[in-house]
């Protein structure tokens, strides 16, 4: 059994069983999302705060939708209109929010490691979820990516996954590499040398600088967003050259295996890392990723806040016997048993 998890900070904290359990649990929440009234009372009375020091639309909306479908209450701490502008430190902000009585804080910050620091300051009652810290990690994105791959390809194990683009500045790539390889996929990073981390020692991946040479072998092509700022930093000569060498164009799609899928964490730059037509092909599962993001985040919030599973993500699946074995309150008066029928 894995160590207890109070927080979700890094994919590295999860073992294969944790990941499997989370993906299986996500099925239940995907089903809830398909209902006529897609809302369950599981987290009624729980309070979740979004503490976003960096812009985010889709991740925040996705978390918000997940929390609401579980009936949790949510509050947003918006940095631009808050006392942070007046010079309040991160620690004071966090302790202030905690004092109001919250159950979870979902943090996004431009600096790596901030969610860990926040978790240290808080008492044991409050869970911290990392919604992206610097170039470091974005664990819920990796979980929804694994779920989407599992949905389309049955399982992650044994697949060949190429992550293409700006690996160096990508927290998505770091979390994805951890999750994909933990689940048994073979990962190849495809990027120009300037967009790879300076040191890849210990990364369980292969590296290629030539997309065309690996394309035909891949089961999953995972494209990363090519940020325009990278040009002013002289990491790529021009977006056009990047597209020519690393963009998934209509021509390159022809080299893909029939069952290969195309993924992207969004927001897409159509015409840069992915051509407009390719983004709309049936094999592009980018919209499924967004849809699954809500279900995965429901599973994460439920496990951390509601399941009562001793804050253990890695517990064995429960059976009815285990539920019955848990102590029940004794009633004051023993109820009468009705006489047998007939």
């Amino acid at each position, binding site marked *: 059994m894995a160590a207890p998890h109070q927080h979700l900070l890094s994919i590295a904290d999860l073992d294969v069983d944790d990941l499997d359990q989370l993906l299986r649990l996500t099925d239940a929440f995907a*089903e809830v999302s398909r209902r*006529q009234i897609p*809302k369950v009372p*599981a987290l009624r009375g729980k309070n979740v705060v979004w503490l976003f020091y960096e812009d985010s639309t889709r991740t925040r909306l996705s978390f918000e939708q997940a929390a609401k479908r579980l009936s949790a209450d949510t509050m947003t701490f918006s940095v631009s209109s808050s006392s942070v502008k007046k010079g309040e430190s991160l620690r004071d902000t966090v302790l202030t929010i905690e004092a109001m009585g919250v159950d979870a804080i979902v943090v996004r910050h431009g600096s790596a490691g901030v969610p860990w620091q926040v978790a240290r300051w808080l008492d044991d009652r409050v869970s911290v979820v990392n919604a992206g810290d610097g170039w470091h990690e974005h664990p819920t994105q990796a979980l929804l990516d694994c779920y989407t791959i599992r949905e389309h390809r049955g399982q992650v194990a044994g697949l060949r996954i190429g992550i293409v683009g700006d690996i160096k500045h990508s927290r998505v790539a770091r979390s994805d590499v951890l999750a994909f390889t933990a689940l048994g996929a073979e990962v190849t990073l495809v990027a120009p040398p300037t967009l790879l981390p300076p040191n890849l020692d210990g990364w369980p991946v292969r590296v290629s600088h030539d997309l065309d040479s690996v394309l035909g072998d891949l089961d999953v092509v995972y494209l990363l967003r090519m940020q325009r700022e990278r040009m002013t930093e002289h990491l790529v000569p021009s977006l056009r050259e990047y597209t020519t060498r690393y963009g998934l164009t209509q021509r390159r799609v022809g080299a893909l295996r029939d069952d290969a899928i195309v993924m992207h964490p969004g927001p897409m730059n159509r015409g840069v890392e992915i051509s407009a037509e390719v983004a709309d092909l049936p094999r592009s599962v980018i919209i499924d990723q967004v849809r699954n993001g809500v279900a995965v985040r429901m599973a994460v919030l439920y496990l951390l806040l509601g*399941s009562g599973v001793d804050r253990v993500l890695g517990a064995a699946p429960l059976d009815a016997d285990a*539920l019955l074995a848990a102590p029940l309150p*004794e*009633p004051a008066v023993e109820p009468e048993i009705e006489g047998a029928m007939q």
Partner: protein
Amino acid sequence: MDADDVRRAIWRMGHEIVERNHGLDGVVLVGLQTGGVALAHAFADALHEIDGASPPVGTLDVALYRDDIGIRPVLPEAVTEIPVDLDGAIVVLVDDVLFTGRTIRAALDALNAFGRVRAVQLAVMVDRGHRELPIRPDFVGKNLPTRRDEMVNVSPSGVDLGELVKDGR
């Protein structure tokens, strides 16, 4: 109860369901995960023989509607599947054992998410008493007086009463 007793009880309760509803028009069987699912299918087979009609069968997992979330470990065990629109339907909830009534309370809540049903009826193989809520079954296989710390196991091969061994799982 042995396997034959269980089969006879299903047969009798099937007749009661048909009698109560003057046939099977609008009747939907919903088995509660996990103990009620096999039973719901057994009812569907029996009802087909009795009445000729085959009511739709759904499954419902109430884990996310329980009132003991956070007190006892609760994880959704199996996926809910309701094959038809429940607006105006007569839902027969099927479970193996009726105990405190809290599962049924949660199931009544959960059904709301699938539409406005005309009526809900409850069929259980074993009513073991110890209710904590004002809930009663409409169709009962057997009333079985139990102690709180006993365990009732219902399967197609019969109903067993066992001591709960806390450490021996």
